[in-house]
Structures are given as C-alpha cells and as structure tokens.
C-alpha cells in the first residue's frame, strides 16, 4: 500500500470573529481569537487538496483571509 501522507499543522488567520460553532463545518479545526477582530483557524491538514478544500469553504463564507502559515514539523519527527 501507498505510504500515508503525514498531516501538517496550519494556521489560517481571518478578519472578523467567527464563532467556535463553525469548527465542525471547517473540518474540525480549532478556532481561536487574536485581538478584538481576528480569528485563527488551526489544525492538522492532511495534504494540499485538503488545504485548498478548506480555503474554498472559507472563501464561500466570504471571510477575508489575512494569512496562512504552515507550522514546521518538529525536527525529531521521522518516517516510520
């Protein structure tokens, strides 16, 4: 079988406060806030197509996107 792709953690920063109830809609990503007016959507994303799928959902809600970052994998993580 093909080797499973390792999920990567991403943080996506949005303008406005999105309530935590949207977490499930957004692929069970966690929802946190930064300051008064920004939302951070954070969590494991399986691969690039999952990432673009999530971005589409955000686009479809009309939420302004501020930034998107990949949290680098820990250095001691190795392939099994």
């Amino acid at each position, binding site marked *: 079988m093909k080797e499973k792709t390792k999920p990567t953690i991403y943080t996506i920063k949005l303008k*406005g*406060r*999105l*309530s935590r*109830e*949207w977490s*499930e*809609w957004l692929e069970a990503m966690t929802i946190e806030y930064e300051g*008064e*007016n920004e*939302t951070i959507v954070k969590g494991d994303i399986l691969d690039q197509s999952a990432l673009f799928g999530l971005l589409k959902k955000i*686009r*479809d*809600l*009309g*939420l302004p996107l501020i930034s998107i970052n990949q949290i680098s994998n820990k250095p001691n993580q190795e392939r099994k």
Partner: protein
Amino acid sequence: MPAPILTTKLHLPPLRAKYVFRSTLLSKLNKGLASGSQLTLFSAPAGFGKTTLMSEWAANCHRSVAWLTLDEGDQTTAGFLGYLISALQTIHPALGEAEAAALHFSQNPPIEVLLVNLLNEIAAEPDPFLLVLDDYHLVDSREIDRLMAFFVEHQPGQIHLVILTREDPSLPLTRLRARNQLTEIRASDLRFNTAETADFMNQVMGINLKSEEIIKLDGQVEGWVAGLQLAGLALQGQKTPTLLSKPFTGSNHFVLDYLLDEVLTHQDGPTQHFLIQTSILDRLCGSLCDAITHNDSYNSQQMLETLEHANLFIIPLDNERGWFRYHPLFRDLLQKQLGQRLSNDAISGLHEQASQWFEEHDEPEKAIQHAISGKTFERAVMLAEASYASMDEAFRSAAWLAWVNKLPDQVVRKHPLLCIQMAMSLTDSGNLELSERYLQYADPMLSQTNAEGEVHLLAAKAALAHAFNAQLLGNLDETVRFANLSLQHTPTEDSFQRSQINVILGFTNWANGNLEAALNTMNEWMSSMLKLGNVMFVVASGFAVADILVGLGRLEDAEKSLIHCLELAKTQGLDAENILAHHYLGLAMISHERNNETTFKKFLQKAEETGNISTLPDWPYRYGLAQAVIYETEGDLERALVALDKAQTNYTVNPVPILRTTNALKARIHIKQNRLNKAHDWVQKQRLSISDDVTYLSEFDHLTLARLHIQEGDFSGVSDMLGRMLIAAKAQNRKGSLLEILTTMSLINDAQGNTTQALNVIEQALTLAEPESYCRLFIECGEPMRKMLETLSINQKHPLKRYVNNLLTAFSEVKNKTSPSFGASVLVEPLTDREIEILRLIAQGFSNEEISRQLYVVISTIKGHNLRIFDKLQVKNRTEAVAKAREIGLI
C-alpha cells in the same frame, strides 16, 4: 446518447419586483460593452450581489442573453461544451447543432475542432449577444480553463462573454486588461454605498431606518448585500426597527452568523424546520421537500413560494416556480445550524430520503451524492453500479468518478463490479496506473476457471478493462491476450460486449499486421452489429475493412466492400449520407492507384461533397493525406508537404493504426526533392536504423529509409533489412506490403547494377500486382522502374507483356502531362539545399546582389552557385534555369 441537459441551469434569474437600481455600475457595464470589450468579469466573494446585478444588466443591455449556471458536475470539456451549446441555442436554436451531434456521436470528440466550428457559427449570427457563465468558480478543471482561454482568444465580435465568479478565472486577464478588452466588476464596486444601503433597507426590505442607523449598519456590513438582506429580515420582525441591540454593535462577531440566528428566531416553528432540513438540498422543488420534511402542517410548494415572497434568499430556477435554490451563502449558514440542531442520524435520514426521491426521479448522480452524504454506503454502491453505463454514455463518467471517490476504500474493495467501473472511468481520464490498481481488486475473478454466472460476467469486464489499458499503452500482445480472455468469459448472447472486444482485437491485429485475423474479427463485429440492427455503425466502419483489404493487396475486394457499404447506406435513407465521405475517398484512392482517371475524379468529387457536410472527426486528416497524394502525382511537391502538415494538425486520436506517418510521407517527398538533409533529420529523430526489427507499424518508415539509402548510393545492409521485411510480410500474407518491398528491392538491385536480379524481383512484383491492376505503385518508383519495364517489354513472348505495356503507356502519359515528380532523378547531379534556395530567390525576381544580401554572403559566392546550378540543370542563364526548375518540379 444525448447527455441530459438540466434546463434550470440555462434559466436567467428573474429580477425581483423591487431592487436597487445601480445606475453607476450599469453605465460602467454598458460603456464596456459599447467600447467593444470582449469579457466582463464579476469577481467578488459570496453574497455581493453579482447575479442580481447581472440580471439587472440583462434587462438593460439591449442585447439577448444566453445564461449558464455552472455546478460541481461540470468538469469535463465534452459536458461543458454541451451545456455551452444548449445555452447558445436559447439565442438561436440552430447554433451548434452539428457540434452537439458530434459530441453525442463520438466517445472522443475533437473538442477544439468543434469549438472552432462553433465560433465560426457565432460569427455568422445577425445580432450581437451576451453569454453569461455564472458560478464559474465551481469549475475545477484545467481543460475547461484552457477551452475558455481558447474561446476568449478567438472570440468573434458577435458575442460578449460575462463570467461571474468568486475567484479570478485562469484566463489571460492581464493581456485583456492591457488591450482594454476587459470590464471588471469587483467587490469594491459591488459594495453598497450609504445611499444604496438606505434604498435597499427602505425600498426593498420595507424597513424605515433612521439615517444614523443606516450609517451604523453600513459600517457593520461594509456594503455586503447578503449582510444587509439578513439584517433586513431580522429587523422585519421588530415593532420599532432599531439596530441598537447589544451584540450587533461593537463586537466583531461574524456578522452573518449573528444575523441568521436573528432571522431564524423571527420565523415560526415549521418555517424554521423547513429551512434547516431542506438546507441539505442544492436544488429544491415541492415534491422533493415534502419527501424529506414529512410535515403535514404545510405544503412545501406553498412554503417555497412564501419564502421567495419574503426575500428569504431563495431563487427561482424556472418560470413555473417548479425549482428553486437557496443563495449558496445562506445555505451554508443554514447547514451549519442543521449540524447544531439535529443529530447525525437524523441528518443521514434526511439524505437517505433525498437519495430515494432522486432515484425515483431518475437523477442517479444526485441520488449517489445524497447516499454518500448520508453515509448509506451500500446504497451508494448499488446506485453507482447501476448508473455507470448511462453516465458513461452521457460523458459524465468523470462526475460519476468524483462521487464514487468519496466512498471509503474498504467499501469499494468489497465490490468488484464497482472496482472495474472505476478502473474504466480512470482509463477514460487517462489515469492508467490507478486504473490498473482498481482492477487488481477484481483480478481474483479472472483466475476462477469454473466460474459461473455473475463471476463470469465480472471476469469478462475486468479482462476487457485490462485490454483497453494495454491497448492505450501500445502493448499489443497483452491487448490480444486480455481481449481473448474477455471473449472466453463473455456469453454468446451478449452481442454488445462481444462486439466491443472484437473491435479491440480487430484494431490490435491490424496494427500487428495480422490482417487476416483483423478482417475476421471486424467481419464478426459487423455481423453482430447488423444483428443488433445498427446498420449505421456497420456502414461507418466499412472504410476500416477496406483499408485492411488494401493492406492485404486485395484492391478488388476493397472496392467491392466499399460499394456494398454505399448500397447499405442507401437502404437507410439520406441520414447515412454524411458518413460516406471516407468510402468515396477510399474508392477514389483505389481508382488513383489503378490510374483510372475518370472514376478517380468522380469519386473524389463525391468525397469532397459529402466531406464538406461531414462531422466525422477524422475526415480532415484522411482528406489531407489524400490531397497530398494528389498534389504529389501532379508534381506539386511543395503543396503536398503543406497538405501533410495540415493533415497532421487535424489528426484526432482514434484506434485506426497509423501505418504511414505524415513525417515519413514528408521524408519521401524530401527524398524526391533531393533535400536529403531533411530526410536525415527525420531518420535521426525517429532513431531509425537498417538493423532494426521491423514491425508492421514501422514498415513504411523502413521502406522510406531504404529509399534514402538508395538515393545516396549507400547500400550496405539495406537488402538484408528488406529480406527480413519480406519474410514477415509473407508470413502474414500481406500482399500490399510484399509489393512495396519487392519494388524497393528491384530499385536497389538496379542501382547496384544487379540487372538480372532486379528484373527477377520486378517480375515477382508484377505477377502479384497484375490481377489487381496496380499502376501508381510502379510509376511512383520513377525513371529506373520505367527502364526496367522497358527491358522486360523487349521480350515479346513475356507472359506479363500486356500488363508491362500498359504500365509503360501510363508512364509516358504521366511524363507528357506534368512529369515533374521525377525531378530529382532526371538530373545527373542533384541540386543541394542551398542551390535550391537560391533558385527560389531567382524565381521570385531577386537580383544576384539582393540575394547575396539576403543570404549574408558575398556576390561572387552567389555567382559561383549560379554557375553550378546552370551546369547541373544544363541551361545557360537565370531565366532558363527557372523555367527548367519549374518544369521538373524543383521549385
């Protein structure tokens, strides 16, 4: 079979009775239209009023409007083009009729050719019009993006394209902007200003807000009309409309989220239920909503109309108020509520009801979609298996695959039929590797020797899929092996599948040079098609049988089978006429080979007449090849080269093996023109060598290579290669090949001075050729052949005397007419490429000095070239040189 067209997708969304008249935007749009811009792009996030503005413009642009709303199902170019044509036909029913027919007729329609034809038809429309593509962001296919880029690039002035999207499309926007051919409406344009916000709230939503509240609201939603509409709905329930309530001011909550809560709480219980439950549907109608809501307290149809009346984000999709859809943004908000209010089981239940409704109403795609969403996977598998064949026929196999891909892998693996269907569909989309992987899941079926019933059928299908893949990979042996295996498992009464396999076997044997086997399978295929009553198919494939017969050197039989097809077509009435172009062309080319000018001209004319109205995708290619042959016999070699290039650009992939590539045909002409460098370039590119193992597919390449060697006087190894080819051709009884090889052998023997051997070989060829009256075969060999035939004719008692004399007469006729095709061989010493180049410039009237400047050499060099040219052509001056060169076809 025609793809089902959802007419709701072609419906121009109606303007509401009350709306904000956006005069600034409308004048911007009309100005763009008047300035001749090609494309108007509405690019903005959800809920900015793109569609509404477009409806408003449609009512104010004084042009007809063709409308197409795209969805996730529109991912194949064939399906997309089908809808595009349907949209255009709302303007003019005859637009794209032939192209739509071609889409339905062929499994691999030549999209670009069809698009070019369509654009030409649009250019001929009397009145200019708009084509609107709404929700373009839902198209997620690079092929469709490319198709649209081509469309924009070649767009006639009659049509103005409008694209509504949430993301910028992959089109050359920068270039269009630079040329002032793009009008853009973006989020910043669409935002309502304070005055428009006031208008919207007061006029459209019917709420009287104070101006300070308008300003506050405007600051809150920033002119986002979806937000304004939700705010309006929330306020409609209040006695004294005021926005000074707590969460809405100050806090930065996602505005729509908050507003939807407000809106829902103002609806009565049944309405809330209805909205939330039906949010699983992307299209709604009364009966469908009844089926999933099961609520006796209201009638869904009335409910839908009430919602529309109340501005509740519901859009009618037809004039009869049969189908509706929610505004996508509103639907997303409702669906989130659904997840919070109902259990997962309850939601699955709703999907299952929807799936059943769609199944009963013959919309398998939607039925599968809801079965998967409801996690009723066995149901989804059952629906997917049952709908594959019809969706494949309707070019929806990519959409089918997209749905099935959402099933968990462990569910898929348990269902061999589904695996095989997935493999077929992956093959269609060019993913052979993955296709083979799915076939492995079904492979255990293949090894069961005592298989019965069901297992037999699955094994047959799996083997057929393997055969398809092998054929595409060019693995001829595996193709034959799997096709035969599939045939063993296919019941005799399944004529359709047997014929599918026979076609594969037929084409593969053909490519392998097993022409007699190919002929047998093609004949079996044709008789089973006749049994199924499909005379059209039989007629349409008749030309392939004739091609095989020509390969077998049976011109007489090929002619008979083509004429038989023509007669068969007559019994079908005129409908069959436009597929007969290939047959007339085949008859013309046989007459050409036999040097029978009268019948040649007659059939060629018929071929051209029928070809003009033909939608057969491979017609331009085959006709181009024939044109090249005709030009070549007329001695117009340059035109022949152009015709070959043109034929190549018109080639569309199809299973008919290519026995003579256009490049090899060009190399033959280059050899005739003595442009040997060009022929050598081709040899290098093809990596051809006289030590190669020659296959039937490379036979013509190698014969051409032999001709090149003969022309250059480099004979080593050529006879050996020809000898090996002769043995292979004899083993497969390919008389067509034998004749070509033998004539080439006689040429090489003659060139080497082995006169006796040359004559011996030519006699063998003549004996084979005489019963079928071949003629061009010999003439095409040029002067050396004529001399050999002349030598043979000296013997008055020669058994082939009459045939030889006929050939010699044909030679002299050809020579008297235009003869230049002998050009190169007439000359004692051939001209070099450079000399020919100079000759052409002389013919164009350039002076020596001008030529020297053009070629960056000193004038004395040109004069030196000229002297050599005069010498080789045996002329005295430039004028004579040009005349002689034209006469012998050098320029």
